């Protein structure tokens, strides 16, 4: 059961702090047009099904997929909306994958679209639709929301990331300079990628360390921006992808694993964890996806990785937890240039979530960038040939991880 799935194309719209020049459907259409422009033989009429998603309530627009149905070209076709918090984009991509893998008659080619126009809404109020599950439960033991907000979700996702950061720093003995170095690499990479938000071609470690703390150890200069933007990915069968794309990218492994809730746990009885940087979800999702793809030594077999890191400590943590580098060696890899665009194992040369974060789209932009690096069509293309790559996503509160492993050869094992 199941069939091999391929990525035929991926596209973006230009991201910015405020895309007030376009309505939400108009912005989404820009990314779809970019995606289809890379596969000239494919028209909107060739798409059999659509998957769509963004964060719930961020823009105050309910059921946005119906608003933009015509703009996607989805009228009279199957259309499904998926939303899973910060990993929405990754889950939308995985839903696109499964829609093709299922092998239903008439569903061969699926367009997956993930977007966010944060400037339209109040992100903090929107986040409460994700975080309030936890916060209201905490109130049930008599802790008032006003005080809890400061403890758990200070600055929204950064509140969770700060605990991950302090734990990770203590264990691996890294410095704030190591964190700043990751930021510098990301922002300089973003300057070479056409659609990104924070382009800083000349930013230095000193400049990053000269900004105030938001939540120790994370400084203002280290955290992701809030962006407007959209990403689209075209999934299809192995056979059709060969006709559509010069270099089709085959999806060989997908996984989606959740473990502990953020800090306090859903029933306020604890998150079932002492160490938020342990990341069992990341470890398990990597195991599952690599197993499907037949990868035994990810550090050697994978050529390129896009990991979801709004905050620099997460980037160091993910590349270790996903098995790309040995434990406690990630900071060194950033210092010696291994992870640079021209390095041996480039990471996030797109600029990453740290430079561009249209939340609902971000977790799809990781596999999209990973696929484009194999096709040779990425905005900041690495000089080395990429055969195998991965795109990873992270969502807060319920620590939800999405993984998509892909290659230029079909290798998915169906047991």
């Amino acid at each position: 059961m199941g069939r091999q799935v391929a990525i035929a194309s991926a596209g973006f719209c230009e991201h910015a702090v405020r895309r007030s020049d376009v309505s939400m459907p108009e912005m989404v259409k820009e990314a779809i047009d970019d995606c289809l422009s890379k596969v000239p033989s494919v028209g909107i009429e060739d798409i059999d099904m659509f998957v769509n998603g963004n964060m719930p309530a961020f823009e105050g627009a309910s059921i946005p997929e119906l608003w933009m149905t015509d703009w996607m070209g989805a009228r009279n076709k199957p259309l499904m909306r998926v939303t899973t918090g910060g990993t929405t984009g990754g889950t939308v991509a995985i839903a696109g994958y499964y829609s093709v893998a299922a092998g239903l008659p008439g569903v061969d080619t699926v367009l997956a679209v993930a977007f966010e126009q944060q400037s339209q809404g109040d992100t903090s109020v929107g986040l409460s639709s994700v975080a309030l599950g936890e916060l209201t439960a905490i109130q049930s033991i008599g802790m008032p929301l006003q005080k809890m907000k400061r403890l758990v979700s200070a600055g929204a996702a950064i509140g969770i990331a700060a605990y991950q950061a302090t734990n990770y720093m203590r264990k691996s003995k890294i410095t704030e300079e190591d964190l700043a170095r990751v930021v510098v690499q990301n922002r300089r990479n973003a300057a070479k990628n056409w659609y990104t938000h924070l382009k800083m071609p000349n930013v230095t470690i000193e400049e990053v360390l000269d900004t105030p703390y938001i939540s120790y150890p994370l400084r203002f200069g280290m955290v992701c921006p809030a962006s407007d933007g959209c990403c689209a990915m075209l999934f299809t069968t192995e056979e059709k992808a060969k006709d559509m794309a010069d270099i089709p990218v085959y999806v060989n492994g997908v996984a989606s694993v959740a473990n502990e809730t953020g800090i306090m746990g859903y029933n306020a009885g604890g998150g079932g964890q002492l160490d938020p940087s342990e990341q069992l979800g990341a470890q398990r999702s990597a195991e599952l996806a690599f197993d499907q793809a037949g990868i035994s030594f990810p550090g050697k077999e994978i050529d390129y990785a896009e990991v979801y890191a709004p905050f620099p400590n997460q980037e160091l943590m993910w590349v270790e937890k996903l098995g790309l580098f040995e434990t406690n060696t990630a900071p060194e890899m950033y210092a010696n240039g291994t992870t640079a665009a021209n390095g041996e194992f480039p990471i996030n040369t797109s600029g990453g979530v740290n430079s561009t974060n249209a939340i609902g789209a971000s977790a799809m932009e990781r596999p999209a960038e990973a696929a484009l690096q194999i096709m040779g069509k990425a905005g900041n293309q690495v000089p080395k040939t990429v055969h195998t790559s991965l795109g990873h996503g992270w969502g807060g509160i319920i620590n939800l991880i999405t993984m998509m492993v892909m290659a230029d050869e079909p290798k998915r094992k169906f047991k």
Partner: protein
Amino acid sequence: MTEQNVVTNKGMVRAEFNFWVGKYMDKFYDNLENKKIVGNKCPKCSDVFVPPRQVCGKCNETIPLEQNWVDLTDTGTLKNYTITKWKITERGSRKVKDSIIGMVQIDGSNTAIIYKLLDVDPADVKTGMKVKIEWNDKTKGEPGDIKGFVKA
């Protein structure tokens, strides 16, 4: 088991939302400010949209931003209506007088917009009747520039 009401939020949550109307609606509202109705036409099926839109979903056809604009009159046909005593902001505590809300197809267009019918007796309202826009004296380039429709 004891039952307990754990969360009662009596305060107000302040949430500010913007709404980016986009390139096509921007033109529409600019024209409303000058008390004019414009639509745009699908190059394939010739359907005219009021308000204008980027894509004709029926044909999967993108209508270019700079082309296919149609100037329309401020008259139309009542396609459908309902009569209500209630305002959406009131929770059934206060009655207001009958108000008629109708779907109006602007002459020369293939779509309908929804506004109040003004100065029409509920006994006289009829589907298919001709109506005309009643403009606000001061227009701002927003939906409220149209006060409603009156009998033509």
